[in-house]
């Protein structure tokens, strides 16, 4: 087996993540093998023979070996598990009666006004009054399509787990408010809700809020700033459940 330039590294260790290490090590093994087989100097191999002898089929074989061990990838795009359910874990996006159950979500019994504390999040922009509306989970393109074709009720507070600006693109401006389980107040979704002047919490931690519940969101709280993030300051604002609706 040939030795690669990067095989001697005084300061380099393994990658932090096992799958990264596994993949990168597999590609290096492949290069060692093909370089040795070529019998060439590195100068003739790299950008020359290497293009012909390290192929897409080799990369497919690397993946196949990992999958053969029973490994399944964590999905992020919906298309990935949809097209290759044998290679990806279930995304869980289509689970019935879904609700976020974040262990770190703060909870408390109903206060004097009947509000049960059910979570918190990072407020994007301070508004004059808290927001009250109906919680609706919007986690898939199918759900967005449903919003497009059937409309969005006026008081809908969308609960999403995608901090990007593409999933909800055609319906975002119709929402009364947004609770996002990811990202920060600098994420694309946060930028867009700020532009649309839609109240929004990012990085929410929720427990026990189901589709159709009436909720109150403390958007009158201070917005979480870049400085808060950089200095690790907790500036969480609260989410309360007002009543439970079985309508779903």
């Amino acid at each position, binding site marked *: 087996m040939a030795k690669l330039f990067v095989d001697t590294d005084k300061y380099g260790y393994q990658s932090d993540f096992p799958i990264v290490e596994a993949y990168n090590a597999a590609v290096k093994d492949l290069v060692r093998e093909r370089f040795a087989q070529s019998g060439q100097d590195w100068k003739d191999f790299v*950008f020359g023979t290497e293009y012909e002898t390290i192929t897409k089929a080799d990369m497919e074989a690397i993946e196949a070996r990992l999958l053969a061990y029973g490994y399944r990838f*964590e999905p*992020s795009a919906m298309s990935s598990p949809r097209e290759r359910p044998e290679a990806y874990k279930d995304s869980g996006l289509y689970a019935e009666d879904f609700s976020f159950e974040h262990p770190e979500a703060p909870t408390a019994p109903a206060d004097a006004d009947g509000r049960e504390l059910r979570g918190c999040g990072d407020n994007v922009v301070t508004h004059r009054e808290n927001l009250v509306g109906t919680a609706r989970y919007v986690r898939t393109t199918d759900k*967005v399509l449903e919003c497009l074709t059937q409309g969005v009720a006026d008081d809908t507070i969308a609960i999403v787990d995608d901090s990007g600006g593409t*999933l909800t693109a055609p319906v975002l401006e119709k929402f009364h408010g947004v609770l996002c389980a990811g990202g920060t107040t600098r994420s694309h979704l946060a930028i867009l809700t700020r*532009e*649309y*002047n839609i109240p929004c919490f990012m990085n929410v931690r929720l427990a026990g809020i189901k589709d159709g519940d009436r909720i109150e969101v403390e958007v009158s709280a201070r917005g979480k700033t870049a400085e808060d993030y950089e200095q690790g300051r907790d500036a969480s604002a609260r989410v309360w459940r007002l009543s439970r609706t079985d309508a779903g």
Partner: protein
Amino acid sequence: MSDIKLTYAQLLETNNLIQQNADETYWLCATRTVQESKIFPVSAYILFSYLNCFYRYPSLLKKIEEAMPAEEIGDRARQSGIKIVAWTIPCFYLLGREMLINWGVIKPTDAVHDVMYVMDFWKRFQLSWHRNNGNITNRQADHRGQIYAEQKLQVFHADAFECREGDELHTAAQAFMATIAQYGFLVSCESRLTIHNHGPYKIADNREMLVREFRELAEYDYPWLDGVGRDIPYNNLTVTMIIEDCHINLLDDWGSFESEPELRAEHIKAVGLYSADNLSEGHVPVGMGSREELTETFNDLTERIKVATTRLWEEMAGWTRDQQLDAGALVYFGVGKEFAHIAGVYDEEDWMRIDERAERFRPLLNDEYGNLFLGELVGYISCPSQRMHEYTMMMHTGQPRRALSYFPYSMLNDGDYTESVGGMRPGVTNLPAKNDRYRTSQGVLTQEEYNRRSREFVPRSCQEPFRFLCADWVKYHYDTPLADELFGFEQANSRLLKGKGAGLSRADVEALRNKD
């Protein structure tokens, strides 16, 4: 084209340019948060784009420079704006190199001439783009992007219409900016490459101007805007936004900004709207004849963009993962294609394809590996190639790491290096074929016709003797007919400044606004 030789001095400079980008890579990626999308495999396509950049940029930038030098492209960009290229061109390219080093596919001593050339091209473009402030990046200016010349800024200042929260113009402008930002993220497959801000520019003691450029909105290079973008009458739109009692305290090399206090609708006190491309004489007013016309224009464009957003979303939601991967990678890789348009050498085969040398790695790019490898490369800076000796303290984190590998100087002793990845190779795409329609300020053109006009057209301010009449020349010659002529190019379409010449101060401009 610069004639680069491998010398000690050259390597010192190249390594410095690499390090400047390395420091900013970490800061930008750590402070701007992660990108994610349920539609797009974002991290995977970003990695894919890095590889495409590594294999194709050297050839494509050389092809561009055979028609026009990088510093002249910078002059043109300063006239009509350009997409974010400051960080993207070198870092996408260098991160592709870093991936391949960590795979053992290349050594840090490979493709030396390519890397020196790409960095040198970037340096010359950036110095020209930043000519009016003397820096190479926004970072070097403590995160400020003052790009445009006084003559353009005076027109933006003079012609902006006052507005107040709740009035018709303010409401229309706000709705437009939200809608176009939303559309921009979709067009660019979740990235912010459609949206580019620069400034701030000082308007008064308590007022600043932010220039917000939205680029590539209509039928142009992206196959996915064929049809979808047909009813959008401008490919690029620029909103000038004057804000009060709000200071833009950071504008980075990704074109995003932060302010103190946080920018809110109530801070926006005046707006304007323009369009510009490489075939226009700078920024041409759009709907700027009156406040009412501008309000109607914003509302009309908002409606058109909403329709396009829904159509595009429906199309993208039905794409295969390979199509998503291609589109996202080509958006990132394609940040350099505006250079090719300016030089008149754009070829769809060059810029809208995944090179076969990058394509072979596609099977590696599943969602999980994509997220984690990208995270190591630009967030944790934890790849083996990025780790340094224990005495090292990296900027921002103090960790013994660096984001991008240098060239070892030992190459000068042993000659153990290679020069280049070689010329162009065929590319592939899973996207639909592109229609031969390109929306420009001179109408919808074919690729061939667009290139022909780009090669022939030179904005007057870039012609002799005006090209080198900079702010320092104006400072000492503002009272000459030549200075009036120079300012006249920008003032030609101005509502308030037409024919006013070069002698106005900012207060004079404000006085003219108050009379309007």
